[in-house]
């Protein structure tokens, strides 16, 4: 039967949904019983250490560390590929580890280069 296994995973969604359903009322109740004074517009300014906010709040980036995110996208794939191999390790012949080692070697090369590049903070 197609779609049998999905039933197991539905409890995770159920848990997710339950937590949302249980926590949203907390916000709603809080909104209901808490005081709401709209008199002072300064209260709703973003935090700027007591100064009047200047400039845009959403413009700043640590570009120096951007390569790490790029690396993450690629090496995340690698890590989960390793899981596909690792979970089946007990069933495959020993020789079959070699391609994975080759894969890892290639990825190590890439990682070494990437770490070298990302270590040079000045070029980012």
């Amino acid at each position, binding site marked *: *039967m*197609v*779609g049998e296994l999905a039933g197991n995973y539905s409890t995770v969604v159920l848990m997710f949904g339950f937590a949302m359903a249980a926590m949203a009322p907390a916000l709603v109740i809080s909104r209901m019983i808490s005081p709401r004074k709209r008199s002072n517009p300064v209260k709703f300014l973003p935090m700027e250490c007591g100064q009047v906010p200047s400039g845009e709040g959403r413009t700043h980036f640590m570009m120096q560390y*951007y390569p790490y995110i*790029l690396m993450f*996208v690629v090496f995340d*794939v690698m890590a989960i*590929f390793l899981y*596909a191999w690792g979970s089946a390790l007990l069933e495959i012949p020993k020789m079959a580890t070699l391609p994975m080692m080759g894969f890892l070697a290639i990825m190590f090369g890439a990682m070494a280069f990437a770490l070298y590049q990302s270590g040079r903070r000045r070029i980012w």
Partner: protein
Amino acid sequence: MTSELVDFTLVSVALLGIGIYGLAVKRNFIRMLFAVEIIINAANLNIVAFGRFLPHSGGQTMALFSIAIAAAEVAVGLSLIIVAYRMYQNVDIADFRSLKG
């Protein structure tokens, strides 16, 4: 009645259509990347669906490879966007004409 292969293919066709529409209409580089992602996902869905209904483990393996390649593509594509954005301060694809060789 359980879901059948044709249902999945129809969903994937719909996604493909939406993706192609996005590619054709949008001029925003990032939106076009979204459209590409949608198309890739439509393809993945098809691969896995056929792999399931014509029982073969290769379907899932291919899907894994496909997702991995998509990740690589996104990494490169977003780097391109950053470079282009840094050069033109815009994300409009029409502004990137001078990137042509």
